[in-house]
């Protein structure tokens, strides 16, 4: 055998291995789902939890192996079979693993595994333990499909699948009707977005004749920049993104989604599913880059969401609600980055946010676990000494999200702010303001939860305990990631090359080629901006410390609220507005259709049809007398008439 042969053999082997590993990534959680789903009732709880967790860990290990092998320009293409072949349209059931997918895979499987592990401890006493892990594994499977799909339709399967799992998990404690309402709200609002996604997909299919990402990328230059079709496509896709990623005007489902168990909030409603919209836009960045109008819309929606959610977050008293609004706000920041054309910065913040927000939610879960379900921060306080691991990790995560210098959030946020400063000063000002608010409400949360004296009952206090290792280990790992996550995107000022930008360069190249991002701001300016942001964050934290630690103020009770404080606490009454102007008219319309239209139009058509048939039957039965003679007479008469006609014509 010659050397050449050998290398061909080897590279074939290589391809086989990567394909195998690539397939294993989504299949392992699916297997976990099937095993737990069908055999779960015969298995003990401990086994179920570990099957669920280890299947995701397996995916994570496969991802790591692929990640080590792959270069930033490699794309592993796995076409399983041709799924829909109609005329010129050929949609394959295919998976693609490229630089962007690998990043998402690491986040989904890595954080997914940690949260599975955490759930073993968190859910141990729940009667729905098996069901929980079944849903969670199914979610991971769909999420992997979403990020691995090689065309929009594959992505859509994942997109709908994660929506389903989100619905199931928000309404996990289905015996509580308000939780069910929250689940339904999430589902319905997501449907609105999904309709946009679907229509956008149809437009793409109509114009390009394909849904394949790489083909679209190649064909996109054939479109004239900013023409109507392109704006329609991008706007529709963006509507899909606003639904899934909780942006104005479809954001109100996310805070309600906190009805689900806390690990679900961490995994689905902070780290992974809600970032699907950002992933989708980055995936189709070439289309968005060619539609400056849509980019401007995305920018301003992102900015508005970021600041509005941050303001609402200032006054929330439910520990999870604060984090939920914080998530909405941070997602707004990511969208603002996309709107500025800084696609890799958006992904950078997505990743760091996934670290620290998952950690914050898990920390909050640990607090809630310790307090046996108490979520209101007005009844917490002084937990610092009682649950030290949770305390330390939570405070580090809060520092990271606030943009405390050198932690992960600092770098990712700063990169977005630098882009904003360079392109659009008002945006920079508003986003900086929203960061200050973030720092304030996060530390309001920290001080109210962990400092001063415990404000709950003595009985609860006596039961407070640190969580088991399955819960604290994920906290510690995520804490390390929250601190070091910034290393993947160290700015050039620090004499490092921005690893993530380089890694994603190939993915964002089409957009970069179109947008021609102008000169970079000078290094001095960048350092000044960083210092401003860092000092601002610290000042904001100190102010929160002054209010909630030194002055020991505690948010007033619901009845005592008044003025703007109440308006903000009531989330600007957006839910009420939606209820009044959208939900109530929809109900009215349904009622009208049911009581008036159905009764007077649909029913009438039906009864008239029946009445006509009945009347004609009654008329015709006269002729059916049973009298043979009359039949014969009619027959003869008929024949005679026929003869006469025949003769006359």
């Amino acid at each position: 055998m010659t050397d050449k042969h050998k290398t061909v053999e080897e590279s074939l082997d290589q391809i086989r291995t990567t394909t195998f590993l690539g397939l294993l990534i989504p299949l392992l959680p699916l297997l976990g789902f099937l095993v737990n789903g069908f055999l779960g009732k015969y298995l003990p709880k401990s086994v179920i939890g570990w099957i669920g967790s280890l299947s995701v860990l397996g995916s994570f290990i496969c991802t790591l192996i692929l990640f080590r092998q792959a270069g930033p320009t490699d794309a592993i293409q796995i076409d399983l079979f041709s799924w829909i072949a109609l005329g010129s349209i050929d949609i394959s059931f295919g998976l693609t693993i490229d630089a962007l997918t690998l990043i998402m895979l690491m986040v989904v499987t890595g954080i997914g595994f940690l949260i599975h592990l955490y759930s073993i401890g968190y859910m141990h006493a729940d009667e729905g333990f098996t069901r929980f892990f079944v849903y969670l594994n199914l979610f991971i499977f769909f999420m992997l499909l979403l990020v691995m799909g090689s065309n929009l339709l594959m992505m859509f399967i994942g997109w709908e699948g994660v929506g389903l799992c989100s619905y199931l998990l928000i309404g996990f404690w289905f015996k509580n009707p308000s939780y069910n309402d929250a689940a339904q709200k999430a589902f319905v609002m997501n449907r609105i977005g999904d309709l946009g996604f679907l229509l956008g997909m149809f437009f793409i299919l109509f114009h390009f004749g394909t849904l394949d990402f790489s083909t679209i990328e190649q064909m996109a230059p054939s479109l004239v920049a900013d023409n109507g079709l392109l704006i329609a496509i991008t706007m529709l896709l963006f509507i899909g993104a606003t639904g899934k990623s909780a942006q104005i005007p479809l954001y109100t489902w996310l805070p309600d989604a906190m009805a689900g168990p806390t690990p679900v909030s961490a995994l689905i409603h902070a780290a992974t599913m809600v970032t699907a919209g950002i992933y989708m836009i980055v995936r189709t960045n070439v289309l968005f880059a060619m539609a400056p109008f849509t980019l401007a819309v995305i920018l301003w929606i992102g900015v508005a969401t970021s600041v509005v959610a941050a303001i609402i977050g200032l006054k929330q008293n439910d520990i999870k609600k604060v984090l939920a609004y914080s998530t909405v706000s941070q997602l707004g920041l990511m969208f603002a980055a996309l709107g500025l054309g800084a696609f890799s910065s958006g992904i950078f913040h997505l990743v760091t946010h996934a670290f620290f927000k998952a950690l914050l939610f898990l920390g909050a879960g640990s607090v809630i676990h310790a307090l046996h379900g108490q979520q209101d921060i007005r009844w917490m306080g002084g937990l610092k000494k009682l649950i030290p691991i949770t305390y330390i990790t939570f405070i580090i995560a809060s520092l990271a999200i606030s943009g405390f210098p050198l932690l992960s959030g600092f770098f990712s946020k700063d990169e977005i702010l630098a882009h904003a400063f360079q392109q659009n000063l008002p945006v920079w000002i508003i986003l900086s303001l929203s960061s200050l608010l973030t720092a304030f409400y996060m530390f309001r949360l920290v001080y109210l939860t962990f400092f001063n004296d415990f404000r709950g009952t003595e009985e609860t206090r006596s039961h407070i305990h640190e969580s088991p290792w399955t819960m604290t280990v994920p906290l510690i790992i995520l804490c390390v990631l929250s601190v070091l996550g910034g290393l993947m995107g160290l700015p050039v000022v620090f004499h490092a090359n921005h690893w993530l930008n380089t890694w994603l360069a190939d993915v964002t190249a089409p957009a970069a080629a179109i947008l021609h991002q102008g000169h970079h701001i000078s290094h001095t300016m960048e350092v000044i901006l960083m210092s401003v942001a860092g000092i601002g964050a610290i000042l904001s934290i100190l102010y929160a410390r002054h209010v909630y630690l030194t002055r020991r103020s505690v948010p007033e009770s619901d009845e005592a609220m008044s003025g703007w404080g109440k308006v903000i606490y009531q989330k600007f009454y957006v839910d009420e507005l939606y209820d009044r102007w959208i939900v109530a008219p929809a109900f009215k319309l349904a009622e009208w259709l049911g009581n008036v239209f159905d009764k007077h139009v649909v029913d009438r058509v039906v009864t008239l049809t029946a009445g006509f048939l009945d009347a004609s039957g009654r008329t015709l039965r006269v002729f059916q007398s049973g009298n043979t003679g009359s039949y014969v007479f009619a027959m003869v008469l008929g024949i005679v008439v026929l003869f006469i006609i025949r003769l006359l014509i």
Partner: protein
Amino acid sequence: MDTLIQAVPLNWYLFLSSFLFCIGVMGVLFRRNAIVILMCIELMLNSVNLLLVAFSSYSGNSDGQIFVFFIMVVAAAEVAVGLALLVSIYRNTGSTDIDFLNKLKW
């Protein structure tokens, strides 16, 4: 070559057949005895047979005449069935009056 059939002009056959057929129709229409009605139906059938034979002979094609034999055979079978039905009706209703047979209605 004239046959016996052609000794009579064709028109006369037409008239006779029509006349017989009309008698049959009238009988079917106005008589109430099922046996008579059956006979009238036979009359109508045979008037047409007669016409068929006449036409066949005048057009010099014997197919029609052969066909009539078949019709007769079938008619005989049909009469057998018809009479059997009548017997059965008589046994059930005690009459052959067709006006009693008016149960077949809605």
